[in-house]
Structures are given as C-alpha cells and as structure tokens.
C-alpha cells in the first residue's frame, strides 16, 4: 500500500490545464508537507494541549478583528456597501465592547464574519485566477491570489506592518500557530479522504476560492439565488430572477464577473 501511494505521488503529469506548473508545485507541496509534519503540526498540537480553549478563541477573535477593517474596504471596492457597513460595525463593536477584539460580540448580534481579500476583489472584477501555485510555507494559491497577498493584503496587515520587530514576530508566530491549530481537524479529514493529497488539496482550494469570489453563489450553479439579500431566507418557492438568467452558463470572464460584483448581494452572512 505504501508503495502504491508513493508511486501515485511520483506521477506528476496529470495535465490539469489550471495547473501547468504541477511538477514544481508538487515539489513545494511535499516540502510544505514535511515542514508541517515535523514542525507546524506538532507545535499546533502542543499549543492546543497547553493553551485553554477560551484563550485560543480569544486569539482567533483578536486576529480576525484586525482583518475586519480591510475586509470592509474590499467589500466597498466590490460594490457591496451594505457588507462594508456590517464589517465596519463588526470592527467597531468588537474593538470596544469586545475588548480589543478578544470577544466576537458582533457575531452574537447576528453580524457574521465575512471572508474577503484583495484576490477575491480582483476576481469579482473579472481578473482570472491564473495558474495554481503552491507557495513555500503558505500553501495553496494562484498567481492572482499570491500577488494580491504579497503586494496588497500584506500592506493592510496590522501584524506584518507592526513597527516593533520583537512584538511583530511574536504576534506573527502566535497567529500562525493558532491558525494551524484551528485547522487540525480539517487536515485530519483530508488525510482520510484523499487518494492523492496534492490533487485533492488543489481541487478543493480552487473550488473554495471560486466560491468565495462569488460569496457562496458561483455562476456555474444555475439554481444559485441572486436576489436581494433580504430575500435569501424567504421560505417561498419562486422562479429564477432575471439576474439568474444573466449568469447561467456564462464563464468566469470579463464583463459578467464585473457585473456580478455590482449585482450579486452578499450572501455568506
């Protein structure tokens, strides 16, 4: 069995058009996997055993809160003022009542955390994702997302931009280990589910990003609802709206995606 898996991992040419750099990506992937097995995962497990759950939740909330301002700005650029207002409110409530973001009060009040970054904003405006990339240490990405992350998101990252270097580094390490600890279950499931961890991770990542760009309603799904956000929870059966027909069958390119940026309301709330 082990031999079979090794043989499987060795075969690098499956020819997925979205992954022209597969041989290099696979090499980086196995490097990351090794680093994770020897260093990151054990650290995350130790962290989870030592640090009590409320403190870990506090850390998660604290770092998530710092992101909310940047998320609100991305909402705005994507033409979603309502979402931007929600996320700004999240930041305000959690920073004040939530004691510098340690408590996620806003979620309790029904303002759910959103997921936005500059890569998604570009995607919304019609920029394709480009080839799939596996970045050293950081893992799955695409050309668009990697450039966005490196040149734009990082500039708005309070931790990376923090001036005091020892403090910055400690925060960065804490954030990374906390993040890995939050993913322990998910990574165990991938181990169980995947025949080939590389392709499984890649295909899941690409679908997930596409889903995020369209806030839970990627255009391929012709049943996806695109009505006003207030309507999403309405328990009535109804015919697809005019907006649906605009998107059904249109590939992720140019104008339709830009249009989507302006017309699809925030869904993942």
């Amino acid at each position: 069995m082990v031999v079979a898996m090794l043989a499987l991992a060795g075969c690098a040419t499956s020819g997925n058009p979205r992954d022209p750099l597969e041989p290099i990506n696979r090499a980086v992937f196995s490097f990351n996997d090794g680093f994770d097995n020897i260093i990151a995962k054990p650290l995350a497990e130790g962290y989870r055993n030592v640090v009590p759950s409320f403190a870990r939740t506090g850390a998660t909330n604290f770092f998530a809160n710092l992101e909310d301002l940047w998320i609100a700005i991305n909402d705005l650029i994507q033409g979603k003022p309502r979402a931007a207002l929600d996320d700004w409110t999240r930041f305000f409530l959690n920073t004040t009542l939530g004691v510098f973001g340690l408590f996620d009060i806003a979620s309790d009040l029904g303002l759910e955390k959103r997921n936005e970054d500059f890569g998604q904003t570009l995607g919304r405006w019609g920029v394709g994702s480009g080839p799939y990339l596996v970045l050293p240490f950081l893992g799955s990405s695409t050309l668009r997302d990697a450039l966005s992350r490196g040149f734009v998101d990082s500039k708005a990252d309070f931790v990376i931009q923090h001036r005091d270097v020892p403090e910055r580094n400690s925060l960065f390490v804490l954030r990374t280990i906390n993040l890995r600890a939050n993913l322990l279950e998910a990574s165990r499931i991938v181990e169980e589910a995947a025949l080939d961890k590389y392709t499984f991770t890649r295909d899941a990542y690409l679908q997930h990003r596409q889903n995020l760009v369209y806030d839970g309603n990627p255009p391929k799904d012709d049943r996806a609802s695109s009505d006003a956000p207030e309507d999403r929870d309405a328990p009535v059966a109804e015919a697809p709206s005019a907006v649906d027909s605009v998107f059904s069958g249109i590939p992720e390119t140019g104008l339709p995606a830009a249009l989507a940026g302006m017309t699809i309301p925030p869904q993942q709330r």
Partner: protein
Amino acid sequence: MKYFFALLLLFASPVLPQELSPDALVRNITQEVISVVKQDKEIQSGNSRRIAELVDSKVLPHFNFMRMTQLAVAVNWRKATPEQQKLLTQEFRTLLVRTYSSALSMYRDQLIEIKPLRARADDTEVTVRSEVKQRGAQLVTIDYDMEKTTSGWKVFDVKVGGVSLITTYKEEFANQIRESGLDGLIKTLTGKNRQAEGRVRT
C-alpha cells in the same frame, strides 16, 4: 384515545420521511443525528463502531451512492463492467462513510442551521443549503444536492464551503484511471479502505 394512538402510529410509520420536502428531511436527520452525538460520550471520544452504527441507520438511507460514484467516475463509468461498477460504488461508499463519520466525531457545540428551500414545487433536483456556526470560527456552508426518486429525496453531492465532493473526486479518479485503469482505481480505493479498517471496523 384510540385515535390518538392511530395518529401516533401514522406519524411513526417509516413511509412518512419520504413524503417530506428535501429541506425538512435534511433538518430532521441533522437534528436526530446531532441529538444522538450530543448524548453519546463514546461517539464524542471517537468510538468508530458507534458512529458507524448511527451513520448506517440514520444517514446512509438518504444517499444515492450509485449516482455519486457514477458522477465521480464520469465518462469512464460506461466503460466499466457491471462488476467494476459494483466494486467502485462499494469502495467509494466506504471511503465517504468513513470520512463523514470522522467529521461527525469532531462535532462539539456547533450550531447547524438548515436554510428554507428555494425551489419550484415540480423540481426534481434541488440544493438544500445549510450553515454550520461555531464560536471563534467563521461559519461553514454545507449544501446538499438532492434528487427526487421513487423512494424519496436522495443526496447525490455535498458541497462544503463550495467544495463539491463529486468534483474533487472526479479529478482524483480520472488521474487514477489514466495511470492504471479502472482496476487500478478499485485497487487504490480498496487499499485505502483496508488501511483504515484497523481503526474503523463496522
């Protein structure tokens, strides 16, 4: 009083769940499964036999594994002999059940909300959407693609955070088949299941 029991019997009859709308069906199953998991300390500590029993009795009857396998194997399905199709379905089912079970054992205090269905009354394929919320974590969406069959609504794909089970396995299966044929895929699936069997024995 007699009528009361008659009514009770009617509601307890196994025919009823099939008449349910797909979102009500998903909601019922979710509630049932979660209430068992919440009470069962052994399931929470990862007793895989107990979990498998629960999944077998409550969840599996509502999945169409044949269709799932067929979709994942895609164009190669027609090239498979009936025997190969049977083996593929069986092994894929085992793999999915094991993955589902281990996800279930990690359930703690998440809030699961099944969204009201948005579909026309005569639709034979629908997507039931749900959200899983947990304190200190972003919510995760789980969407169930379901089809109407003669024996009620059946799930044929699950999307977690927009990641479709079928789409993901399609690529994995296609790679395997390209390299070592349908028998190679069956061998890989069987091997992976055997490997895990030491830990999960149903």
